[in-house]
């Protein structure tokens, strides 16, 4: 199936429609605003209104946090980047949608709101990957979780990330970083090219880990969380990552380790929305 022509090229467009659409199209979107635009789109479309059953509570909470952060980030960006004001409005429109979608779900304290040093960064040991010291933080990146069918776990994660990243690059008239169309590959996105790549990678890894934990695949989740700890040691989903790690440890029978980390977590984040869930693991 081939793409329809872009609407702006469609002769059936009226002058009014063309002018209005052109105004939106011509909005200058600085890289950081575009990154948030993409993140907000993902947040908005992946959290359907009315969703949020028992299994989706964590994701919904993160979505609420992401929406909150997106709104804040959009405001901040709008204040300092005049040219990005229109784009900020678009971001906000998505952020608002995401907030509506998850309004009934408990709020989420984003790790980004705290100094990076407060983030739990203890690496996860897993059978298939050695512990690697965390890399330096990339601060200020907004990521959002993606809820998707479990079957997606079998799909190569980097593809989606690269699709988005390369589209960003192409749309900006830059040469795509890998110089080619996204290819289906199992190769991990080991070296994100920029903050956009990293944000997308973090959010997708969190989503993957969450799906693995929710479906009882603790060992797989630990591998994902290990990768997450290495690639985004100070990412915006530090709390969720640690909470998922504790759950995954519990799932794999490492109850003592889970209890120990749960106690540390509760000591550090007593008011976390994940606290009640994590507390279940603290008693061994």
């Amino acid at each position, binding site marked *: 199936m081939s793409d329809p022509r*872009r609407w702006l090229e469609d002769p059936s467009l009226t002058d009014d*429609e063309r002018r209005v659409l052109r105004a939106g199209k011509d909005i200058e979107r600085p890289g950081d605003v575009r990154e948030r635009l993409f993140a907000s789109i993902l947040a*908005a479309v992946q959290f359907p209104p009315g969703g949020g059953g028992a299994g989706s509570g964590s994701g919904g909470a993160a979505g609420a946090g992401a929406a909150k952060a997106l709104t804040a980030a959009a405001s901040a960006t709008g204040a300092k980047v005049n040219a990005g004001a229109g784009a900020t409005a678009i971001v906000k*429109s998505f952020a608002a949608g995401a907030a509506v979608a998850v309004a009934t779900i408990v709020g989420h304290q984003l790790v980004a709101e705290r100094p990076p040093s407060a983030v739990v960064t203890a690496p996860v040991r897993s059978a298939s990957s050695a512990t690697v010291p965390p890399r330096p933080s990339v601060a200020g990146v907004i990521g959002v979780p993606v809820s998707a069918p479990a079957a997606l776990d079998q799909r190569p994660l980097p593809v989606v990330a690269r699709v988005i990243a390369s*589209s960003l690059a192409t749309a900006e008239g830059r040469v795509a970083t890998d110089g080619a169309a996204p290819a289906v590959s199992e190769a991990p996105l080991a070296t994100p090219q920029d903050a956009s790549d990293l944000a997308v990678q973090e959010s997708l890894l969190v989503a993957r880990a969450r799906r693995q934990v929710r479906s009882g695949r603790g060992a797989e989740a630990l591998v994902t969380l290990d990768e997450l700890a290495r690639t985004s040691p100070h990412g915006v989903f530090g709390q969720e990552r640690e909470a998922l790690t504790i759950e995954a440890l519990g799932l794999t029978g490492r109850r003592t380790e889970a209890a120990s980390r749960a106690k540390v977590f509760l000591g550090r984040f007593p008011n976390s929305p994940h606290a009640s869930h994590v507390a279940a693991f603290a008693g061994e």
Partner: protein
Amino acid sequence: MLQRREDLALFESALERLDMDQRAVFCLFELEAMSGEDIAQALEIAPGTVYSRLRSAREAFRKSVRLLTARQTSHAGGAP
């Protein structure tokens, strides 16, 4: 300059009237120039769904622009 600002305001209003699914596809296709296939992958939906959402988004956007510009014109005409 004023016209451009008004157009931008119209654009934002029209965009807000799209539902989230339509808005996402519309923005990615029309503003970000992504291909339908890339959008399908990124949003994890079928390509056919991308195109149907794009179609409905365009229709809704068109209606909104028509309504909003008519409203704008009537306000401008009613001004002293």
